[in-house]
């Protein structure tokens, strides 16, 4: 018979068992840091340093070549007090953002729902709508410029049915609408794709049960589809609004911000001030104002999401 010695658990030395874990933990920490290093380095070099530099430059009058002159908050003061173009471009950007976001989400949701129900043709149309998203914006803009020119395809088509087409890009009342139309054509494919994925996650059983219980199409959409799709819709809303505030290529290539200032946007005005007008400090202050606006709107969206976004599956 072997008698085992009585073991006093309290007397057990804890350190020898824990030491390898701590060492392993430290080693894993170092490993994690190493893995993260390239990303963090890139974040530091390409995000943090430019961000801080931009803030510093916004306090200077700097014509790119020549010595920068410290002017404090003069650039910001000029923007708000003596630059009428700033308020115009801010207004244009807001109009674009609101119209584009509302129309984009409305059309995307409608088309995504339609594509979800048309069976085997769904993937074909999904790809069709997604093609503009993956084609370069520059190429799209140039094609649209040709289409919307006075003698372009659109006006030729209208002339075919006896309508004298307007100047889509040179009439200050139509130019912004033309840019929004072109942007929608380019942008809805992405949201259709994301919303389509969201719709696929909704259990058909729930909808069948609701149908059996007598719910009509609108009730099924309002009571089941919309709440279950709301996280996806929230994501699409946030991303679409952020993207719309950064609109640049469309006015740059289709209208140059004109006629007059009717399609000039914050980012185009920022680019012009920095690279065409040699006002790097002024451009940087515009960049910071845009940053603050986008941050505030995004923060507002996140603070309000509890009112309509349902995360309970």
């Amino acid at each position, binding site marked *: 018979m072997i008698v085992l010695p009585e073991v006093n658990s309290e007397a057990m030395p804890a350190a020898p068992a824990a030491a390898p874990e701590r060492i392993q933990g430290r080693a894993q920490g170092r490993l994690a840091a190493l893995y993260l290093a390239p990303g963090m380095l890139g974040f530091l070099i390409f995000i943090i340093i430019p961000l801080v530099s931009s803030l510093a430059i916004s306090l200077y009058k700097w014509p790119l070549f020549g010595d920068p002159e410290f002017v404090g908050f003069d650039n910001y003061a000029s923007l708000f007090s003596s630059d009428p173009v700033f308020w115009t471009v801010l207004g244009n950007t807001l109009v674009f953002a609101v119209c584009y976001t509302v129309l984009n989400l409305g059309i995307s949701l409608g088309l995504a729902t339609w594509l979800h129900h048309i069976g085997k043709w769904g993937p074909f149309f999904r790809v069709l709508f997604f093609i503009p998203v993956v084609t370069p914006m520059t190429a799209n803009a140039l094609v649209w410029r040709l289409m919307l020119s006075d003698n372009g395809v659109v006006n030729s088509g209208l002339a075919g049915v006896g309508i004298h087409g307007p100047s889509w890009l040179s009439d200050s009342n139509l130019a912004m609408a033309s840019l929004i139309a072109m942007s929608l054509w380019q942008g809805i494919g992405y949201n259709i794709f994301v919303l389509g994925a969201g719709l696929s996650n909704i259990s058909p059983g729930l909808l069948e049960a609701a149908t059996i219980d007598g719910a009509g199409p609108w009730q099924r959409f309002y009571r089941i589809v919309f709440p279950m799709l709301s996280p996806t819709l929230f994501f699409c809303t946030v991303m679409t609004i952020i993207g719309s505030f950064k609109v640049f290529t469309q006015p740059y290539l289709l209208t140059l911000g004109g006629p*007059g200032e009717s399609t000039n946007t914050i980012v185009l005005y920022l680019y012009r001030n920095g690279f065409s007008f040699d006002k790097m400090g002024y451009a940087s202050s515009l960049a910071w104002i845009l940053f603050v606006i986008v941050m505030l709107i995004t923060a507002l969206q996140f603070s309000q999401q509890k009112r309509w976004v349902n995360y309970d599956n």
Partner: protein
Amino acid sequence: MSRNLPAGRTVSAIAFSAVAALTLAGCGSSGAAASGPGASSAASAMYTWISNENDRSQWQSFIDAAKKTDPGFNLTLEGPSFPDYWTKVKTREASPGAPCIITTQGARAQELKDLLAPLDDLAKKNNIDPSKYNQAMIQGMTVDGKLRAIPYDAAPFVLYYNKDLFQAAGLKYPTENYTRAQFISDAKALTKNGVYGLSLPPQFVNGPAPALAFADGHYPVKDGNLDITNPDFVKDVQFTFDLVNKEHVAQAPQASDVVDVSQQQFMSGQAAMTFGGPWMYQTFTTKTKGTVGVAVIPSTSGNPISMIQGSGFGIAASCQDKEAAFANIMKITTADVIGAVGAGHGNVPTLQAAMKAWAGTKPAADVSTIETLLKNGKPLQTTKNWNQVETLFTQYSVEGFRGTKSAETILNSVANSAK
């Protein structure tokens, strides 16, 4: 065992980081950047406008002509389209590995002043005699009393016209005393059957407005300051806008139209006349549907006065081998080279010695017109913020051409924004 595993992972992580860093470095580097601004390759590189094949072929003809005397000569070319050039040249020259040689227009030397190294000492050392060049060009290339570029052409703006369309309309060709009244009358007679009398770009300097104003002795800059709101100049710009919305002899351009759009209209025979520089001579005379002639810019009095805005080669202030860059400029600005380029492309040489070669390949009437304009030409002088003026005018002019805003309103807006 448990300690070996992280060690293995550490090695993997180091390897991964190294590969990532090398990949980033590889993606980020380019031949030009590697060479650095002081390297000799930068002294043999030129940043210039290359809007189309015509531009590329023109720059190549400088290189080809220089090679005849120095077979080892070479110059690498890079650059965006003409309208983008004035925006991009500054950022390009602020970056590492930037080309040492920069092209500039006489009028724009003022704007690029901080970018361009003064060349007086190098010119003196290389026995350059400024008196042998067109004086309007030397004046244009001199900023703050210092020469900033060696000009290669002295380009008086001209009116190109389609002789076939003039003949078909029963009109006489424009003379060297072409008046505005006759010009309007001709343009109206030519506007029919889907063909317009004139094609217009929306731009300022490459458009008709300053050219027409110059012809009447009105200039956009006075004593170094922007003077586009003076009533005479405003009247001339309004005259230009009225060609579309009142006289209906031209189609309204769009703000985003590059100059090529109006050039294509002319070359395809959709417009009978267009304004342009002699640098388009070869392209227009060989590619237009019909025979092309060159006329003076119409003026109220009929006195032929043209806006001279030729170009030249300067050296970037940041270039570390200015001597080598200047030596290269010398090779592409000899009378032989300029003459050969003028003969092939139409650029009017800035050196009197090269005029014979240029004139030899052109009809006598065209040569006579351009010589008259050279004699009566005035240099286009601009301001330091000219790119802003140019950009804003293009953006605003669309409404002027369509008649929804007056020249006075537009020019006031441009002047206010460009303060």
